[in-house]
């Protein structure tokens, strides 16, 4: 199902880009195509989730096992070599952001969860979204405390684009509010 395009061939170059990326390590691939994925997702049920941090529709945690296992098998070893992290598994949920949906700034890091890398893969939409960019923030720390945050990068949710980023105390990011259309993605984390 998952196919790595030519952008993935030079792993040394990707590793240096990973380390140099700002505001924290990340990579963006625009040639990551998944054959037959849309047919699988057509059968995927989504529920509405809402909290103080988010409002979106998503599939239930722990679902999409076959798609997720193949995704981890194809990408895990490559990303392990590029990032130097010992990746063994991944999880995956499907997300649908409609107008008014958002995911406010957070880092993904939580003690005990062992999230190594986060990813988002954007799918073709019947109504391409306006808004819904992935926004990365630069964090300034003083004595281990966050004292300032600043928007550093906006990543458009283009179809077949894969974004992979480091998970740490300072990997602050958000999904900006979708203002029109439908933003469809797969997202989750890689684990040791």
């Amino acid at each position, binding site marked *: 199902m998952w196919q790595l395009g030519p952008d993935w061939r030079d792993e040394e170059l990707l590793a240096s880009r990973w380390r140099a990326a700002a505001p924290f390590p990340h990579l963006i691939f625009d040639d990551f195509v998944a054959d037959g994925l849309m047919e699988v997702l057509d059968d995927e049920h989504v529920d509405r989730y809402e909290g*103080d941090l988010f409002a979106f529709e998503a599939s239930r945690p722990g679902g999409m096992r076959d798609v997720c296992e193949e995704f981890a098998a194809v990408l895990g070893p490559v990303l392990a070599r590029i990032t130097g992290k010992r990746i063994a598994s991944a999880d995956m949920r499907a997300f649908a952001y409609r107008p008014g949906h958002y995911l406010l700034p957070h880092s993904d890091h939580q003690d005990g969860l062992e999230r190594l890398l986060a990813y988002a893969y954007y799918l073709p939409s019947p109504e391409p979204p306006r808004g819904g960019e992935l926004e990365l923030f630069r964090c300034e720390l003083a004595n281990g405390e966050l004292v300032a945050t600043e928007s550093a990068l906006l990543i458009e949710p283009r179809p077949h684009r894969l974004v992979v980023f480091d998970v740490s105390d300072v990997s602050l990011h958000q999904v900006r509010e979708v203002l029109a259309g439908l933003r469809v993605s797969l997202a989750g984390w890689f684990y040791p």
Partner: protein
Amino acid sequence: MVLPVSLEDLLATRSAVIVANVVTPRPFDGYRRYALVDRGSYDFIDEPDAPELVACAAALIEQQTGDRRRYVESRVVRLVPGDYLLAHHDRIRDHGLEIVVDLSPTAAPAELHYRQHGQVFFRMPCVPGSAALIPRNPTVTSNHTYLSKLHTGEVVRWIALFV
């Protein structure tokens, strides 16, 4: 069964009330911007000069509860489209009665949520001129929901603590 919170605390949170048409909203000057975005994005004024609101709140508390309470502190929070204040940014209160007066110029699709152990038990909609009284204890937190950019306008809330 052992409850992680006292029965008194649980019952206290169930006595939150909303009262309509308490004040006529008025503007404030001197806002500062809070922008540690993992906690909140909003404008605020700590200890605004608003003796009429303090007096109004004290009278409302006495009317609603039969108790006379002492004013402790207050702040004004203003949200513009795209703003929010998350629950983990809220100040924990040992005890007291919080009063919120909605000073928004117009109604907006935004709410103030009060939570106990993560569960929302009280929602204050944005209705200009209304007020809410909420008993506080260490198990209660609040958050101002995200104000959509699909909406124009702002939300203004005066929030005071009485003991």
